[in-house]
């Protein structure tokens, strides 16, 4: 069972990124979406990189996805964040082109696999709600 590490290095939310980092307060994974072309993109930016529209903003995504790739960190790279832990690229169910880098927890590292269905949960540190993932319960798609 996952226990939060002693310490996490935290991002410094900006005007663009604060929705992403604080959406967890309301249990929402907020991902930027373009209202002109309808496509999701990440990280958040003031302009859609696909169609150049300025009409963009955060919207709640399903929080479900699949592991597109992962690695297991076996060395103590970051003080207070003991290995082993899984760093994964999560392909969002809402838009497979959007891939979040996060940790997948609550699963033994040897059982991690590409294609695994996962869902988001949030871990609060000060004014940041880190979106982390764990194996999905029920049907992933």
């Amino acid at each position: 069972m996952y226990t939060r590490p002693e310490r996490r290095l935290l991002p410094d939310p900006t005007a663009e990124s604060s929705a992403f980092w604080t959406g967890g307060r309301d249990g929402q994974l907020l991902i930027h979406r373009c209202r002109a072309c309808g496509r999701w993109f990440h990280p958040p930016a003031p302009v859609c990189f696909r169609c150049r529209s300025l009409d963009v903003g955060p919207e709640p995504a399903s929080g479900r996805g699949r592991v597109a790739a992962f690695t297991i960190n076996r060395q103590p790279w970051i003080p207070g964040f003991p290995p082993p832990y899984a760093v994964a690229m999560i392909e969002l169910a809402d838009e497979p082109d959007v891939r979040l880098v996060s940790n997948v927890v609550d699963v033994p590292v040897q059982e991690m696999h590409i294609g695994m269905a996962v869902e988001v949960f949030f871990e609060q540190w000060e004014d940041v709600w880190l979106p982390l993932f764990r194996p999905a319960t029920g049907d992933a798609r």
Partner: protein
Amino acid sequence: MRRVAVVGAGMTAFGEHFGLGIKDLLPMAVSEMAASVDKGLDRADIQAAWFGELTTTDGFPAGILADSCGLLDIPVTRVENACATGNDAVRNATYAVGSGAFDVALVVGADKVRESSARGTFWEWAGLTRDMAWDYPLGLVAPANFALHVARYLHESPATREHMAMVAVKNHRHALPNPKAQLRFEITVEQALNAPVVVAPFGLYDCTPQSDGAAALLLVSEDAVDRYTDHPVWVRGVGLGLDRVMHQHKRDMTTFPPTVKASKAAYAMAGIGPEDVDVAEVHDCFTGVELISYEDLGFADRFMAYKLIEDGVTAIGGAKPVNPSGGLKAKGHPPGATGVAQCVELFEQLRGEAANQVDGARIGLAHNVGGPTAVSAVTVLSNQRD
């Protein structure tokens, strides 16, 4: 554009140079380069310099090069393009000489990863190659970045960790006769497979060491080449390619598009194809990256890289030797110097003077990918002008 030739090449040994700063390594590499110029080099002949350095461990790079090498009367430009810095410095100098602006240009690359002047240097380095806000807090350290790509590559292709181990074994063996290499010892596939895991699927021997070092080249125009040598090595092609810095929208993890773009540009300029390359120095920062690069450079069809390493094609004695110097894996990887040092190796290969000579090599290719996988630079060299 005028033709451009390499007429001198030299480098320091790569390794842990705790006692030497960038300002010490630079003149060492430049002196060795000057000594390799067949008909001699008067320092006053050098008209401009391009200096590839990723971090500034001794202070302002262009000034340090001018100062430490006695080049105070020429323009010096610092080039920084992540791990593609070295071959991008070669590219910039090639354009300057090719354009007619200069006849004689110096290209230098240097870095100190084993820098001991500041405790935090390695972490500052890390910040240069990744987005601190998005990925790093979750443990996406530099090796993990490449590990995600290689994990997906192993998932989709027939390649296995054993094939990665074979790359490590080959490059360690190639480094043995190279006096400039950092890791001059042989390893076995079993050792590589049983080594401690760094970030899966990379064990210790899948990773480049951290290195300090410098390398230098002298580039001259076709009009000036006879003053320096009767055995020039021609810069036949250069190329640079980019991709998204972050992983979020990279749909295909099993290829590095910057390498594909950079090599296509370099092949087109050289008027050759991948089949014409006799020897290559490929960016094997991690063993799996060498495999993926076989495909991106056109040496192998998609997902067929494992066959090249299995069949010994890329070993010395094979049809297309890769990393005869030992590569980043065993020669070492001080990023700014890495690409320049690849060209030093090819200069020697194409003149038949290399420590680990590839018989009859006529065309060589040098390749960097970095940032972490967002930029690539490729240089094609040949002992034949056309």
